[in-house]
């Protein structure tokens, strides 16, 4: 290279440069701190203030936790033991533990059913959440709604069995006439299912004691369990309804399209709390007198409708983000609408929509606490009502609300972590 002329632009590299370690000042803890915490006076000042605030919080909360009392029977006893020092009165949690979780009316000797239902819920949800698990497990997932219902509400096993049979018979009828047209199939499903349920109704009435668990009416459900029931049921229902609404909104058929648009826009235009009041009071006017249309079901319908509308909009965004080419490629291969939607469009649209759907799901779960305003005793209702109103625990705000916050945070944070994990799993573009 020495004979290269000063003005020549030609250049040929003869030796490749080896890779080198970065200079020491670019790595290590000290470097990180200098870069991120103490870069410039403003940055340093912010860091100092932040450290001070954190110190204050920890210094305040730490003794409260450490001195906490876990085994008294009332706030007064706590105060006696503490003698004016800071300390939480966590005994309220231990003493009212069952009420916080299960409400105050569910028969105590039947708690095992709720715990079992909860454990089985994990088993049922697992294959849906983790697609690496064997597909056969989905069989149990399909049965879970019926098992779960039986465990929680009790009564004869015949009731959920008849419900299940209705679906199965309906599905068989659907399969039989599906080839004619989808609408015919849907009609056949409806007719067959209704007939089965109607006939099954006789069976249930004639043998109410068949494999019966002690029946617990809906108004006895309470505590965090009620939030879980509402959350799980409404999330699992609102996802399919949301998908249908989103697809309906894109439909070529004007009537379907308009129904979906009106539904979505109406629901999104009203506060959930008003819908809950409607469920509580107004719906009863529309029902024939004497029908006992469970309050829980009414609430589930309203929350589901509410969440479906939001999920539909989220999914519509996902659908809009798909390039036209995906539809065209699916079409050009001869896939029909249902196949293209299920195999090509929805998997991609849902993947794009995961953050939005999770957002709605987390919001929905937290909104289940709103039922406390229509005198249902969910976790918040329990704390506000029976517990804080009792003479023993009147005034234990921090511990109780902290516990409620903690429970909801655990669930919502897990959902959020799961969704981020799922997004990484589904990422296929850069691996």
């Amino acid at each position: 290279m020495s004979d290269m002329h000063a003005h020549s632009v030609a250049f040929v590299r003869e030796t490749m440069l080896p890779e080198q370690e970065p200079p020491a000042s670019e790595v290590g803890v000290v470097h990180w701190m200098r870069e991120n915490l103490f870069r410039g006076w403003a940055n340093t000042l912010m860091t100092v203030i932040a450290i001070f605030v954190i110190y204050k919080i920890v210094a305040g909360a730490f003794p409260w936790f450490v001195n906490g009392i876990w085994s008294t029977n009332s706030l007064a006893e706590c105060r006696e033991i503490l003698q004016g020092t800071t300390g939480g009165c966590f005994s309220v949690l231990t003493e009212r533990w069952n009420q916080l979780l299960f409400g105050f009316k569910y028969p105590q000797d039947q708690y095992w059913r709720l715990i079992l239902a909860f454990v089985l819920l994990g088993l049922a949800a697992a294959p849906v959440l983790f697609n690496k698990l064997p597909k056969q497990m989905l069989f149990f997932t399909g049965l879970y709604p019926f098992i779960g219902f039986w465990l929680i509400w009790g009564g004869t096993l015949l009731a959920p069995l008849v419900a299940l049979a209705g679906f199965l018979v309906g599905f068989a009828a659907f399969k039989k006439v599906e080839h004619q047209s989808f609408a015919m199939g849907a009609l056949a499903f409806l007719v067959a299912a209704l007939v089965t349920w109607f006939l099954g109704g006789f069976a249930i009435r004639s043998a109410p004691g068949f494999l019966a668990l002690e029946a617990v009416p809906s108004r006895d459900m309470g505590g965090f369990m009620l939030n879980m029931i509402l959350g799980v049921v409404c999330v699992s229902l609102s996802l399919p309804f949301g998908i249908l609404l989103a697809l309906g909104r894109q439909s070529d058929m004007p009537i379907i399209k308009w129904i979906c648009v009106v539904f979505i826009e109406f629901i999104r235009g009203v506060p959930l709390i008003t819908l809950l009041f409607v469920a509580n009071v107004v719906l009863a006017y529309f029902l024939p007198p004497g029908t006992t249309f469970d309050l829980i079901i009414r609430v589930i319908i309203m929350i589901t409708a509410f969440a479906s509308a939001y999920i539909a909009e989220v999914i519509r965004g996902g659908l809009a983000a798909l390039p036209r080419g995906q539809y065209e490629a699916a079409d050009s291969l001869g896939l029909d609408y249902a196949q293209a939607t299920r195999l090509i469009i929805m998997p991609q649209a849902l993947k794009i929509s995961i953050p939005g759907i999770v957002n709605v799901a987390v919001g929905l779960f937290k909104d289940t606490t709103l039922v406390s305003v229509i005198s249902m005793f969910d976790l918040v209702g329990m704390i506000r009502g029976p517990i804080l109103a009792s003479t023993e625990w009147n005034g234990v705000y921090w511990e109780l609300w902290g516990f409620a916050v903690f429970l909801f945070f655990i669930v919502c944070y897990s959902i959020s972590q799961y969704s981020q994990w799922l997004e990484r799993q589904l990422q296929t573009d850069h691996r």
Partner: protein
Amino acid sequence: MAEAAQTQMEISNEVAIQIENMNKWYGTFHVLRDIDLTVYRGERIVIAGPSGSGKSTLIRCINALEEHQKGSISVDGTRLSSDVKNIDRIRSEVGMVFQHFNLFPHLTILENCTLAPIWVRKTPKKEAEEIAMHFLTKVKIPDQAKKYPGQLSGGQQQRVAIARSLCMRPRIMLFDEPTSALDPEMIKEVLDTMVELAEEGMTMLCVTHEMGFARQVANRVIFMDAGQIVEQNEPEEFFNNPQNERTKLFLSQILGH
């Protein structure tokens, strides 16, 4: 197989596609005007023309990705109607390759290729996978079968797209500018695949600006302008002795530097 294919090179009298007096509008815009075209089995037709002349629209009408408003299109003797079943059947007989590949990014290469055979043709999964591997080998990327489209180069993706179409055993293949989204060094690998396909006697309609390819494999070149077929001829004649003024202008622009 190759031998049999070679003998099929000549064109039969059997009509593969019959387009008669076909017209299409986008709203009030008259995109295709009085298109008449008969494609015989085994023909390799290249469609050329300036941008916006309606080339894509024409071939997209053949598999009903676009609806035409007047005239008729018959594929394999079946007339395209608005009946969904009819359309789906024709689409499963007609393969299409797009400019932007349009592979399904959430499925592996193998799944991309087996999806339609399994769901449309009801082929058993195992058999569908064998067919898919056969065609992936043919387009020379069997080793990428487990990867996702996003991990492949453009040229590889386009070859997968071709294999995906072939897995449906189509009788007709439509190509819409299959190489114009590719870098120059990848164009050749895709064109080679297409040449091979042509040599096996596949009926092909191909919108492309690759005039070398047209000369090599086409038995007919169609020139379109303003929604009409302006000129069609054998490639030699078409390139060396164009008749229409618009064709001459187009060729001088595309070939002459």
